[in-house]
């Protein structure tokens, strides 16, 4: 009996989410909470990971790079998956907010991929004896970075934003094939990169080392959410620069009111 109103409430929420003015206000309210959650979780994870977790029996202290490398590598793939889902919605149903959010995900994904690659290279030097090898996992992750850069480049090369988003969405969907390649590369090929230590059924990492990793993984998700909303709000402002709702946002209306009160106006 209660399912119908609940379903309607969800549909109403999704419908509202598609409205730029409503999205702008809603995201603005959510942003401080997301940043606060990120700051709190990241502080706990970094403190525990760097100072409280015991050194690894084999790698010693260098294993602490795991707390930045693994969560950023996970998120680099997750963001691409979400970006592809939003690109699919944008292409099939022509939802503008999906286009905006998919395109705003690309620079965040590229940043996380870059951090994963850089921290992995730094970790590789003392453990493998080299910063880089053309190993399947490393190469496919590098391809992911190029895919992000390709999507960003294609989007900015077409002037009309909706046409640009459609073209870049198509490229995003083509690039999805790289995700299973990254994930299974360590199983399909003989790689220098180790196999996953954490799976659906369990983990081979000691709980004292595992908890900071899981907390950091949660923190990076909050970073992505906050950064995505922030970027989407700015993109909406830039695209709707001549629309009436933009003139009514507090940042603009307050500045206009101050200007009106200045002597000489």
């Amino acid at each position, binding site marked *: 009996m209660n399912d119908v109103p609940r379903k309607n409430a969800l549909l109403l929420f999704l419908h509202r989410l598609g409205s730029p003015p409503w999205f702008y206000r809603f995201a603005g309210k959510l942003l401080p909470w997301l940043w606060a959650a990120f700051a709190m979780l990241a502080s706990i994870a970094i403190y525990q990971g*760097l100072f409280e977790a015991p050194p690894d029996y084999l790698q010693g*202290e260098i294993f602490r790079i795991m707390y930045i*490398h693994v969560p950023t590598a996970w998120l680099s793939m997750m963001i691409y998956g979400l970006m592809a889902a939003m690109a699919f919605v944008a292409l099939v149903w022509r939802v503008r907010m999906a286009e905006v959010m998919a395109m705003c995900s690309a620079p965040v994904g590229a*940043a996380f991929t870059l951090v994963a690659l*850089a921290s992995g290279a730094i970790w590789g030097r003392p453990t493998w004896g080299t910063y880089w090898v053309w190993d399947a996992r490393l190469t496919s992750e590098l391809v992911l970075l190029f895919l992000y850069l390709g999507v960003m480049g294609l989007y900015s090369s077409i002037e009309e934003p909706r046409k640009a988003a459609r073209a870049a969405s198509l490229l995003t969907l083509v690039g999805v094939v790289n995700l299973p390649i990254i994930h299974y590369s360590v199983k399909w090929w003989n790689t220098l990169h180790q196999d996953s230590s954490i799976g659906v059924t369990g983990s081979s990492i000691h709980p004292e080392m595992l908890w900071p990793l899981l907390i950091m993984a949660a923190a990076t998700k909050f970073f992505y959410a906050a950064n995505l909303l922030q*970027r989407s*709000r700015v993109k909406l402002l830039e695209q709707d*620069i001549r629309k009436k709702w933009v003139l009514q946002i507090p940042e603009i209306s307050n500045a206009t009111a101050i200007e009106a009160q200045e002597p000489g106006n």
Partner: protein
Amino acid sequence: MNHTPFIWAAYGIGALVLTWCALAPLLRKKAAIKAILEMRRATNERRANHDADA
């Protein structure tokens, strides 16, 4: 081998890239708001000139 520089370098690069990633939209927002306000000022001036001419 002393691992400390490697650990700090990894965290340093991470902090640098993510800080830039977080600050970039703030800078773009500032620029967008400035552009909107300038556009609005120009429209008001045009309107005032038009009213004065009339």
